[in-house]
């Protein structure tokens, strides 16, 4: 098997921060334009998802996620900031990022 290994000079901390579903993304770059910190830049290939060039600068304001017209973009809290909760009646413990999460709660906000 041919394993590709590579290195990049002066790499940034490799937090993922944003994940973009390439099936839903139209490359409109709304996320690029609302990001206050220029975390993302447009992809050189038009229509393709933007590239997070400076994920370490992210403030997690969530404007990219809320303003994405196709909901292709999601903010991902890094592992060291993932929290858990306890189901009151059963005592079960769940957390962000677990392997078999419970079904999503789809209730919209006020």
């Amino acid at each position, binding site marked *: 098997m041919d394993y590709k290994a590579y290195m990049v000079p002066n790499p940034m901390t490799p937090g993922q921060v944003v994940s973009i579903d390439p099936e839903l993304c139209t490359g409109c770059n709304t996320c690029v334009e609302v990001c*206050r910190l220029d975390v993302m830049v447009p992809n050189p290939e038009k229509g393709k998802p933007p590239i997070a060039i400076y994920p370490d600068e992210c403030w997690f304001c969530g404007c990219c996620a809320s303003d994405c017209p196709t909901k292709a973009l999601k903010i991902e*809290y890094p592992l060291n900031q993932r929290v858990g909760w306890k189901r009151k009646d059963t005592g079960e413990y769940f957390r962000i990022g677990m392997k078999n999460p419970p079904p999503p709660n789809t209730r919209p906000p006020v």
Partner: protein
Amino acid sequence: MVEAIYNRAMKWPYPVNYGKENEVEADVLVVGGGIAGCHAAINAARKGAKVVVVDKGAVVRSGSGGAGVDHWHLACTNPCSKVTPEEMIEVMKAFGDYDYGEFGNGMACYILCKESYDTLLDIEKMGVKVRDVDDEFKGAPFRDEKTKLMFAYDYVNNYCIRVNGGADIKVAMYNECQRLGVKIYDRIMATSLLTEGGKQGARVIGATGLNVRTGEFYIFRSKATVLSAGQPSGLWIFSTELKGGAALFMDPNNSGEGTAMAWRAGAELALMERGGAGYTSGGFGYPQYGVGNAHNTWYACKIVDANGKEIPWVDRDGKILKTVEERYLPAPGQKYFYYGRYSGSPEVWGPSLIPDLPERIMKGEYVLPLYADLPGMPDYERRAIWGLMIPHEGKCRIIYDNYQRAGFDPDKDMLQVIVMPPDKYTYAAWWAAFGARQWRERVHGGGLLFDWDLKASLDGLYVAGCQAYCCADHASSAVTGRYAGRKAARYSQTVKKSVIDRQQVDAEKTRVYSPLQQGEGGIGWKELRGGLARIMQDYVGEYLNEETLKMGLTWLNSIKESEASSVYVRNPHELARTLECLTRITVGEITMQASLARKASSRELSFNRLDYPEVDPPEWNKLLTIKLDNGNIKLGELPNDYWLKPPYAPTYEENYRKHNGL
């Protein structure tokens, strides 16, 4: 795509043209397009001024309030309020408190009390719901049936309003700016103020800026300027996505350009020595409001320990409250309460969790971890916290979306409180964790000195939002922006345009582009940033003395000559980040100089001088100011209530009447 990135360095995707000049004219220039800046722009435009807004990010979402707001503070004139602005300011004056603490600013506080509700009505007209328009909370004790306004904290006095639709408040304001013909210049970092004849201390006649994507230079010429670039932040800790970025309260773009620009132009600053670690430290924090807690957005949430044992709530006198409803009522004999027992004086303390929770955890009475028991709250409070406040508070919409996507259900689930040493459970904002603190980075910190016109010490310069000394929070920024905008517009009608001093512009261009001359032998801006944070922690941290403060100044000077002069940059973004480091050096120097000037410790200012240990001696109960005068540091002092002394009138009402410009 991974191959494309990693096989070669990528070309910067924007057209770069360092040094190219762009000239822009305005009647009113607004530097910083956040909440304060947008309100300033809107209100200046309404007065007929030709308005230009310049912002380092994108005005549609920029600033600390750009991602949302849940509370609207001190709306004393709303129809359900039982506290008038005059009552509120007198209580705060009597106890030496002005909105969250001592050494505060009564002008801004009074203006806020007077105009907070009117500003909220402005927002409503721009399309933000504000009220419980869908009757989701019909019958709830915090909702007024007639007005459909929803209140927070004190349900008797009703002066703090919960904002429905606050998540997109910035978008509404951006649209209003567009509608009014305000010209918006996004992605431009302001770098200096331009003055008449290029002289320090002269009238402000414009500003310069750098496009953070293209590297082009902007020269703004204006008759009046509103400075609203926020409070300097990120000096004591360099937060990244793995280390506290999500816990930060203030927009990371608030690196202090406004303060540094004003300083170099000769404006007077106040309270730059104020201490007090921001609770949103950003050290190793979790997402703000994204953990079990009982603070602010989560106010009055039931907290239980690992065995489900409830942590009691007490009133200001320490009496245990038996019902949830009592957490939203003043104590017997108390007129109104402000919030918790962390701000103001006991007269205005509100209900809080038991103040000796840390000791009782140590003794084993309450077992960690704690949980925020949302299922244990009444339906309307639970829905208010998780369904209204969280989705609309800044940076919290993604908490709502992410946590629910992962299956979180507030009707069934108790969000865990993070595990910390017991003594950290005093102040209920339990996401910021602990460790090195952001000293002197609290709301109500140092900033520009101003008067009843919200005018800075330089002619032609107005100030709004956290740029002003001792201002904070969304409503305060909105109101001061609204006020400063109309005052700046009025002023702009009385002056002619000035001639830009070419020498001043050239000197600034040289300063701005000098990092480009530096070769690849130097360090990157992140190392510089981290190094500056280290110096700030060491030399102007929690405990100070003359030796270490002077050593701090020596270090900053040395860094300017050495590392800061050899930072390499690869694109306009990195150039801007490098300039932000130079800004932070300037702000660091001002902080050290202001700290040297205060030769006494102060509990009120969280200011600890090891060489002047006497706490709050009466002769130091005054405001210290600092500015540059012909390149030299000039110290000044003012009474703590200078706005009620000559040349001003002795009462708030009279001063407001004379100056408000409505």
